[in-house]
């Protein structure tokens, strides 16, 4: 069994989830509570990874991170390394690729919070950040949990983007899905089967636990 690739996948999924929650919470709050003409455009951009083939997204990320792009050059000058075909580059791609899976459940949860509670908070002297932390997030716990689980699961399961941006470097960018693909290519069905089984059981356990917590948490539904 390819424990090393399982480790890479877990590290990548955890880091992606952590980064995305920090980005997605203010982004979703802004999209929910601000009415500007161009929020529609931003909403569309956020949802883009849902419909775009992973290879297309991976292509653009690769071009953007590559040493010929201004960003890639700036990164090379600052850190001395490259972004493409590294764990950091893979992380950037994963964050972009899983963005809708973090933002959409939060949008649904935030929209379900009674506006009058936000007004009550405002009249009581709280600013936007205070209201978000004290009222909106506590009332969106189910949506927050859903966002975390979906982001984590989606990152563990991604393949096309990893292949395009990360390649297949053991211990660096070789994730579980790449490892299984690699094993099958090499006709090593036994290894592919074991790794797949671990991933299957792990995913099932995580989802079951999440649903159980949701049910105990009561009223708010996971797919609200």
């Amino acid at each position, binding site marked *: 069994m390819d424990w090393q690739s399982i480790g890479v996948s877990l590290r990548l999924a955890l880091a992606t989830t952590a980064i995305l929650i920090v980005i997605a919470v203010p982004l979703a709050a802004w999209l929910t509570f601000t009415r500007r003409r161009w929020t529609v455009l931003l909403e569309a951009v956020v949802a883009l990874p849902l419909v775009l083939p992973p290879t297309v997204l991976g292509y653009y990320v690769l071009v953007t991170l590559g040493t010929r792009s201004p960003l890639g050059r700036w990164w090379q000058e600052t850190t001395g390394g490259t972004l493409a075909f590294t764990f950091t580059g893979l992380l950037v791609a994963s964050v972009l690729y899983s963005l809708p899976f973090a933002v959409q459940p939060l949008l649904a949860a935030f929209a379900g919070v009674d506006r009058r509670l936000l007004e009550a908070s405002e009249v*009581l*002297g709280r600013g936007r950040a205070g209201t978000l932390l004290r009222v909106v997030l506590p009332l969106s716990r189910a949506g927050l949990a859903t966002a975390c689980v979906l982001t984590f699961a989606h990152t563990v399961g991604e393949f096309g983007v990893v292949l395009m941006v990360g390649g297949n470097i053991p211990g660096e960018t070789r994730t579980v899905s790449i490892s299984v693909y690699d094993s099958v290519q090499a006709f090593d069905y036994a290894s592919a089967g074991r790794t797949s089984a671990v991933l299957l059981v792990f995913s099932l356990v995580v989802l079951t636990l999440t649903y159980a917590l949701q049910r105990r948490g009561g009223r708010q539904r996971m797919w609200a």
Partner: protein
Amino acid sequence: MRRTVRPVVPAAASAANDLLDVHVRRHVVDARLAVPLAGGGVTVLFGPSGAGKTTILRCIAGLDRTEGGHITMAGTNWDDGAGSSVPARHRRVGYLFQDHALFPHLGVEANVAFGLHRVGASERNERVRAALAAVGAAECTGRTVDELSGGEAQRVALARALVTEPRLLLLDEPLSALDAPTRARLRTDLRRMLELSGIPALIVTHDRSEALVLADRVVVLIDGTVRQVGSPEEVFDRPADPDVARIVGIETATPGVVSHVDDDLIQVDVGTRQLTALTLEQPVEPHNVGDQVLVCVRAQDVAIELPGAAGGGRSPRNQLPAEITSITTDGALVRVELDAGFALTAYITRPALAELELDVGSRVVASVKSPAVHLITRRRAE
């Protein structure tokens, strides 16, 4: 059509610094009103639903903007009607929402403490405890919001609004979400709690009893414009125009004091006269001697008889010697204003007027059945 209404303001409070000066223009609303701030006092914004009452309240709180108009609080500009406004969180107003809007994820104390985030923990706890006690909700301590009855939730919401010591309290239909018995009990309590707080309050309601019990001043709002401003007795006794009359109902509303209670029969002193009221429905809280009440009599319940013609003893009736002060025709009916020791309004038919040969100055007997005398408690005897 724009109406200009002269705000009724006590002379001492006429300086701009003691006044919330409001001119809200938004959608169909175009209303000017002034709320005196000195020494507390309750202004009731009264009108039918859809008149724009809540819109005005939300503009004052900063939850909505005026579209041309202004809101000036004690000389400070809160909203100039041209897009520049002080954010709601900096206005320091207490707002009581119609459905309480308590935070469901917080307990009772955390709800009340929500606005005290800049206050130290020990002072905060002390103020929360005091605020809950002041609104009679001390026993709600330690509970979740789910465990509160409607009346308790309203008291907790009021504590949350009062605890921050706001400059102004805004209450949106504060009792409408409650069942009738709770509403009647909380009505009188609310009046007392507002008096004790000393914070000026603006209350929105469409309920006549609420307006009568709670108000020091009534502002009548119809179709987005202010039609009449005055004391509850003035507005309910002498409506300024037919629209106002339709909304307030033609009633005599005059203050009195309960002087004798005998089971269902209540005697009330009104000036030098005595009236008997028969309470057919068991009141939520029994009347006690010394209670200050508003005595309400609908005009159609007042019969006019000539002196000596009245037969006594048929049913518990109030027979009040009176003098006619004015007679006005109002459709098929004639509106007769009487001086019976207090101002009393009666409606009679035109044939009855001719038959009785009534004129201004005629001495008559106004007859009111005791079940038609409706008492609203304003302040309970201590």
